[in-house]
């Protein structure tokens, strides 16, 4: 048998699933003692070029509260044409179309390699994708121009049959009608007034002209298009819209000295949500919000228009001094929920030098699966390329986005679902497999994920409910089935079903198995998600303490040591990296707000809870490559000792790509050696990290901030703040080495951290 590493990798590749434990403790008690819950990272739409979707519909268990999908784990009686559900043990006859089934003629879903399988659902008319641009016009002329160009460009990227709409806002909110000739027509809303969805629809004239689609049933697109003048197929209004965008003016209302422009973001979103809600409920739609600053009036206001009142900082928030915070957050949450219910996602593209209210608005994207992109200006490649990448296509030429996803998790009886953490909202489906113990978004086994990309990953947490005194027979397996229904970007409805099983192990007798089945990477990310989730509602220090305690408990559980002898402490290989992850996690911007604005924190957290394992790990512990004449590029420790004069470092924190030229290299570069023919090798050396960075840039969404700096450069701080401060102004000379570069910080270094950890782990007092 392959190593666990290989097994894990294989599982991830095939099913997009990474479990914290790959042997499951067989009782609730044991499970809780393991500290890290049984949980997994699940990437519902993991790209599977090798997986052709099947053109029929899944066979469901006939038990009303089960409805599990036929899968390779089911026992099948080929002669009786009967299959037994592996979750509820219901025996189901095959449908008539399966009459020809036999041991040699099995449908795909029964084959083990199809533990993940995708069905295309035929019924129902295809529904076009909807893109609704919500554009802030309170921008600098230059920014607005860049944004207009990006938007115009995006029209060419949209699928021709997609519906597109435009809302602009500043002091007022304008909903542009796209189908009119000769005169540009728009509906205007006051930026200060909160309107109900019904009011908005009435004001837009959407209520009395055609009956709305019944609850849950989308409108026939043609009808919808006919009656909704605001959303029109791209191919039809391409020219119109291009002109319209071209004529967009900055918000004409004068901004007096000492004031911020009045920006009615709240109402604009409300109108956007209301518009979609009214015309296209339960249809895949993307509201793309472009803002150049914080909302300054009306509902959802984040800061007043007086420039002398700065926008809230963490300091203000901690002191409960942010007067608009709660109200605005509540407002946007309500909007997000409404939007999520209808399957519409909201993207936020915020480009401003100051904060733009992401803290309050992040829920819009978090709850609806939308993107958040934060930049300094719309006139930067960061924004332009990121925006372009939203419309990137996969190997099939389909957009890497899916809409209206509903993820359902089914578990076998010993297991219950505690919750999920990711870009999802609960559908409040209280099935028999729902635990009363909530972790993340719990109390349900179904979540709505309004927008999905191939990398969208949810953390799903389980609870073992099997009682200690009811042992599971040897060799018993627990199973989990993920059923993801979604609208593919080519408008098909699809269902992807992933069914996995893991062995049960008695924690008392088979602890080694369990220990060795530990996926420390997944566990680190899953624990980090829990931490971040808590950080949203709890004080930072509490979260850190909680994380520390968990770590200590885990070390106590699995460490080998003599009591009260820190030096004797050892961890097995499968756990060896875990403390280090935790160390970096503690320093990460996901849990530390120091030096970050509330907006930045929100931005980082937002991305952290939706990226897949690899990216998440990078976020927790950035990757550092070193380039030198001494050999090929190599990853080096994220440590101050890696910062050497004759090295070029490339750090990837997911959000930033930092190329750092060591002192010597930097001097050479300044001297211009790379331009001299005889120093071709130096030129190549300089070029190597650039090429690698380029590669990373291309693969990453959103585009990371690209930083080219050098020893002593101001931007070197990005690197210095990430590396383990093994050498500081305090420790430098005690180490007595010339290598590395001291970090001016009082933060503890990894060594100190580990020392404390060991001490605490072996302490008998805890």
């Amino acid at each position, binding site marked *: 048998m392959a190593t666990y590493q290989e097994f894990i990798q294989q599982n991830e590749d095939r099913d997009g699933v990474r479990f914290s434990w790959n042997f499951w403790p067989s009782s609730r008690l044991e499970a809780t003692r393991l500290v890290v819950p049984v949980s997994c990272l699940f990437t519902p739409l993991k790209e599977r070029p090798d997986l052709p979707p099947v053109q029929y519909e899944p066979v469901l268990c006939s038990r009303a509260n089960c409805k599990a999908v036929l899968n390779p784990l089911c026992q099948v009686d080929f002669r009786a044409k009967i299959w037994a559900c592996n979750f509820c043990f219901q025996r189901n006859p095959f449908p008539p179309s399966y009459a020809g089934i036999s041991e040699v003629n099995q449908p795909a879903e029964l084959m083990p390699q199809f533990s993940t399988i995708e069905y295309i659902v035929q019924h129902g008319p295809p529904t076009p994708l909807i893109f609704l641009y919500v554009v802030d016009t309170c921008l600098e002329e230059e920014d607005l121009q860049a944004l207009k160009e990006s938007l115009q460009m995006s029209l060419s990227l949209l699928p021709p049959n997609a519906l597109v709409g435009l809302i602009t806002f500043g002091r*007022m909110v*304008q909903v542009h*009608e796209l189908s*009119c000739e*000769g*005169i*540009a*027509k*728009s*509906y*205007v*809303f*006051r930026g200060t*007034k909160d*309107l109900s969805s019904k*009011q908005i629809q*009435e*004001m*837009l*004239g959407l209520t009395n002209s055609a009956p709305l689609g019944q609850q849950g049933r989308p409108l026939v697109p043609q009808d919808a298009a006919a009656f909704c003048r605001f959303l029109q197929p791209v191919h039809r209004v391409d020219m119109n819209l291009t002109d319209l965008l071209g*004529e967009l003016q900055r918000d*004409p*209302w*004068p901004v007096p000295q000492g004031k911020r422009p009045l920006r009615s973001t709240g109402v604009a979103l409300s109108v956007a949500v209301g518009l979609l809600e009214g015309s296209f409920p339960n249809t895949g739609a993307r509201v793309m919000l472009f803002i150049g600053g914080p909302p300054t009036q009306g509902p959802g206001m984040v800061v007043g228009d007086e420039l002398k009142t700065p926008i809230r900082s963490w300091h203000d928030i901690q002191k409960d001094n942010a007067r608009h915070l709660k109200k605005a957050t509540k407002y946007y949450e309500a909007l997000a929920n409404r939007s999520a219910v209808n399957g519409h996602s909201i993207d936020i593209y915020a480009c401003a030098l100051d904060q733009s209210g992401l803290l309050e608005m992040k829920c819009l994207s978090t709850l609806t699966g939308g993107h958040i992109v934060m930049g300094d200006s719309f006139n930067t490649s960061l924004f332009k390329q990121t925006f372009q990448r939203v419309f990137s296509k996969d190997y099939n030429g389909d957009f890497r986005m899916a809409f209206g996803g509903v993820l359902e998790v089914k578990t076998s009886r010993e297991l219950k679902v505690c919750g999920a953490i990711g870009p999802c909202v609960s559908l409040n489906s209280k099935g028999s497999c729902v635990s009363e113990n909530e972790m993340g978004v719990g109390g349900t086994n179904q979540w709505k994920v309004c927008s999905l990309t191939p990398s969208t990953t949810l953390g799903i947490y389980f609870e073992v409910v099997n009682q200690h005194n009811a042992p599971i027979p040897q060799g018993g397996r627990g199973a989990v089935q993920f059923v993801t229904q979604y609208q593919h970007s080519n408008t098909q409805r699809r269902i992807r079903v992933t069914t996995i099983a893991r062995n049960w192990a008695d924690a008392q007798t088979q602890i080694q198995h369990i220990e060795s089945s530990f996926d420390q990477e997944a566990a680190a990310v899953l624990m980090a998600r829990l931490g971040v989730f808590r950080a949203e509602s709890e004080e930072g220090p509490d979260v850190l303490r909680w994380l520390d305690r968990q770590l200590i408990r885990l070390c106590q559980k699995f460490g080998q040591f003599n009591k009260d002898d820190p030096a004797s402490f050892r961890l097995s290989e499968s756990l060896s990296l875990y403390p280090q992850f935790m160390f970096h996690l503690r320093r990460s911007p996901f849990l530390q707000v120091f030096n970050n604005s509330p907006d930045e924190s929100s931005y980082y957290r937002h991305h952290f809870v939706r990226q897949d394992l690899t990216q998440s790990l990078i976020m927790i512990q950035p990757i550092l490559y070193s380039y030198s004449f001494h050999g090929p590029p190599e990853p080096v420790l994220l440590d101050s000792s890696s910062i050497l004069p004759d090295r070029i470092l490339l750090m990837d924190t997911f959000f930033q790509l930092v190329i750092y030229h060591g002192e010597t290299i930097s001097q050479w570069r300044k001297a211009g050696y790379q331009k001299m023919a005889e120093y071709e090798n130096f030129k190549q050396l300089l070029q190597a990290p650039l090429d690698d960075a380029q590669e990373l840039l291309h693969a990453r969404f959103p585009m990371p901030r690209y930083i080219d700096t050098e020893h002593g450069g101001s931007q070197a701080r990005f690197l210095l703040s990430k590396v383990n401060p093994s050498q500081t102004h305090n420790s430098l000379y005690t180490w007595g080495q010339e290598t590395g570069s001291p970090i001016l910080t009082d933060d503890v270094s990894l060594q100190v951290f580990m020392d404390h950890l060991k001490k605490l782990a072996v302490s008998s007092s805890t």
Partner: protein
Amino acid sequence: MDNTMTHWKFPLLVSRDRFRDELRMNVNQHTRMASPYGQPQPGYGQHGYAPLDGGYLAPYNGPGSAYQTGAPPQGYTPFTTFPYKAVTAHPVSDLSSPLDLGPTRGPPTSGPPPASAPQQYNQYSQSQGDIQNGPPSATQAPPRSAVSQPYNQGAMNLSGQRFSYPQHYGPPPTMQQVTNQMTGMQIASGPPTPAGPGYVPPHSSQPPVTTAYSATPLSSQTQAPPPASSASTQLPPPTGPAASQQYYGGPPPSSQQPFNSSLPPTSQQQFTSSAPPPPPQQTLPPSSYSGLMPPPSQAPAPPASQPQQAFLPTQPPFSSAPSPVSQPSFISGPPPPAQGSFPPTAPPPSSQPGPFPPLGPPPTSAPSGHFSGPMPPQQQPPLSQPSPYHSGPPPPRAQMPPTSMAQSNHLPPGPQGPPGPPGPLQQPPSHPGMQGGYPPQQNGAFGQTRGPQPGYAGPYPGQPNYGAPAPAPAPAPPAQKRLDPDAIPSPIQVIEDDKAKTTEPFTTGVRGQVPPLVTTNFQVKDQGNASPRFIRCTAYNMPCTADMAKQCPVPLAAVLKPLATLPPDETPPYLVDHGESGPIRCNRCKAYMCPYMQFIEGGRRFQCAFCSCITEVPPHYFQHLDHTGKRVDCYERPELSLGSYEFLATLDYCKNNKIPQPPAFIFLIDVSYSAVKSGMVGIICQELKTLIDYLPRENPEMESVVRVGFVTYNKVLHFYNVKSSLAQPQMLVVSDVSDMFVPLLDGFLVNVNESRLVIESLLDQIPEMFADTRETETVFGPVIQAGLEALKAADSAGKLFVFHTSLPIAEAPGKLKNREDKKLIGTDKEKSLFQPQVSFYNTLAKECVAQGCCVDLFLFPNQYVDVATLGVVPVSTGGSIYKYTYFQAQSDQERFLKDLRRDIQKPVGFDAVMRVRTSTGFRATDFFGSFFMSNTTDVELAGLDCDKAITVEFKHDDKLNEETGALMQCAVLYTSCSGQRRLRIHNMAINCCSQLADLYRNCETDTIINFFSKYAFRGVLNNPTKVVRDTLVNQCAQILACYRKNCASPSSAGQLILPECMKLLPVYLNCVLKSDMLLPGADVSLDDRAYLRQLISCMDVTESHVFFYPRLLPLMKLESGSLPVAVRDSEERLSKGGVYLLETGLHLFLWKKASVQRELLLNIFGSQSFNQIDPTMTSLPVLDNPFSQRLREIIDSFRAQRSRYMKLIVVKQEDRAELLFRHFLVEDKSASGGASYVDFLCHMHKEIRQLLS
């Protein structure tokens, strides 16, 4: 020819009227003469006189002066008025009866109606009275005392003219000339005053007046023989008393005899009244009508002679006191001259002259009689008779009197004459009575006349007569079934008389002059008081005390039209810039510098004429005074020499101390289904494309700075961005009507020239865009809010043009429900229907006013739209409402477009505040019109255009001083259409009197009616219409009763005596009472009434006059250069085979009888057959014949005169539309139950009698 003709006729006709007039006039005159004269005239008169004296006038002067002196109290006014009035009176009367009389005149042969002949006879028989009456009519006395004043002022000039007159004018013009002369006379009389004293004593003021009048008349009449006549007249005056008496004595008898039946009694009575008349009067009173009747009978007998006699007698009366009788008195006083003069006027001048003289003597005696007592009888009788009819006019006619003398006699007859036949009622009896003794004749009027005389005897001997005539009807009613319509005061007559009398520009220099009627074309010269085009007062002589004012409830009000457009030949107010410190004002009351300010201390300070506070003159404004205490630069500075001028306002006068932005016009167009369907939207958009080039501007060379914006709406609002940089307009839809806001700033209000292309593109597209609309609901409140917000955002004032079709039932602020409930009409709850449904619009209006947002509302309703509520904002913001019910593009387009064009182009001021300051003793207490008031003194007008009038009511809060008079200053602070902040100042000084008679002699009925109508129309908000009507009738009765009690000579209660100036009050009041507002017919919708209500509220006198008493022109003969003489609004006046044009200021009808002459049809319609004419046509075919051309010219000129375009409605007899037409025949019974003129007069008389008893 015509002129002469009329001339001739006039005498005859006038004569009758005269009597009446005179009678009244006397009354009036007396009073007037008394006070006013003394002061004002002196100056004028003297100057004027001088020349006069020199000439033939000399004698005149003598007399005149004498009279005047006597008259002083009645004073100048009387003089002026008298003459005029007399003249007018006559004319009026003439007009009423003109036709008849005219003919009679024979010389007058031209005189149309042969029928009159008999009358003439009668008149004659009655005595010269009739004849005399004729003359007065001829003079077409402008009843207004104002005229008289001008004369006084102009006296100087006039006198000069006079001289020339005879020569220049010749007989024809005489009428006018007469008046002028009259004035001159008066002037002359002015000087005479000295003599007067002697005179006066006996007759008091009246005599003088009369004399003056007589003199004037004489002169005028005499024109030809001026010198002699004048001399004679004048002479008589001096001798006056005696002479007059003699006249009376002598002539009276004779006259009486002739008159006997008719006039004599009355006149005599009057006179007698003064002295012994009582008995006769008593007898006569009853037969006033009869009296009239008798004349006819008598007439035949002594026609020629009588007339003469009449004159004579009349004169005496004048001289005596009867100035009212004016003519008589004149005759009497100046009999010889007067007669002489009269005669001339009289058609048969030559012959008459002779007769007159002779008569003169008798008259003189008569006059003396008046004075003395004995004579009176004769004159009185005549007077009384005339007076009844003219009751109102007499005073003014006083001037006429000379002629009227005879007329006066006639008057009674006149009335009788025409009615004669009808008159039968009383007349028949009267005849006998009359003949037997005067008493019988007078029964009605006569009797009364006599009554008056007694009263009169004292101060206003003649007056009673004046009043007397009218009453006749009342008493008559029972007996007579019906009054003769010709016997009652005729509006047409009054109007024509005034026209004839007004030949000179009206100069405003003299305080308290009554201006010519609004129906008269005249030029105004501003010499220190505001032109009547800006300010018209109900009374130009205010009672001095509140008690007096209370006693005679004549409303004291002024109709202000601050931005009125002046005719091209008058200079618009000058713009004065006092520099950075702003206009010079009184420190205490803040009155603006005006001609009344008195500079003292060598010019270093000035004393405020309003509050007497003394204020330093700023150094830069200092100027030395001349020896008279006037500033040397007085005539270089408009604010020191003119009645109206403008100041450039400084920053202190601007909102927020910022120079105002140029105003903006916002067009808000309903694009709901009905609006589109009716074609309204298309028409507006098409029209606006050209109209935007005609936005108001001050200098036609310049581009208008007014910016424009466009909004369309149904249930939601569509704003348009028409910024010049856009390739195509942008439409911004605002559906949040519950909380209106303006969605854009830049590009909404634009300069027309910059954005022309975009605007045109927009206007092209609007009709297309909504061509298929199915939206039927509309909003309204948010529409105005939108405009308001837009103006707020632009920080400017401006005007909204809202084009709206239906009741706003869509869910929005200001949503209305249909509350039209016919069942409520006539109940106590009816008033609620005129109040706004919701208070929303009141609040909105307030906000609009604060911003200077004026709203003009164009309604195109197909059903009830609740004008009462929708109109709240326009009415409060100084806007206008236009209503086009059942609008159809084809037929109503022209009317709507013309209105729209005019509305957009007309001069307008924004964000205005008006304040009326008054001198101590009275103050402005109430205001009527389209505006908003947040306190009790400031009238706030978001917009004020050239058509808007504001009526202000005054009340006493202290005693007024006769010497200083009453001053008012109306200051309007506004933003001109070029964005300049200005102050327009109008100053007005009027007289004050301690005698009620003066008040009655200086009233303006049209203005009073204007006030009453506004008062009443506002009253319906709080009272049932019945109560409102009763209140009106009651007040009117009180006014007349008061006159009767205090100013008219005693007469029998059965006699109706109307003041000359108010003789039309009943007929006009009846029109008001019958209006759709107060007495709606079944087919009059609530909206129509609410619409009318607001229309009236801002009408000026010209509009309200024609609105209540439509102009009805016979079209059988058209001549270029002059309009046919209008006929009275009664079906009886419509001749067979005729075609008539009727205009009300809102409607224009062309009515034709079924039997219309084919030729006429051909000329007008180019069609032979009556039936072929399309009743739906709205414009006449353009035919190439003079008749058609002229008719179209007339129609065009009518339309040009009115602020709203009148759609031509062609009505055929027995057509459905005829009902509508008949509705405007206001002298007839109305379908809704309104009384006919005659009936109402009777009713009024009854009321008066009740009050008196």
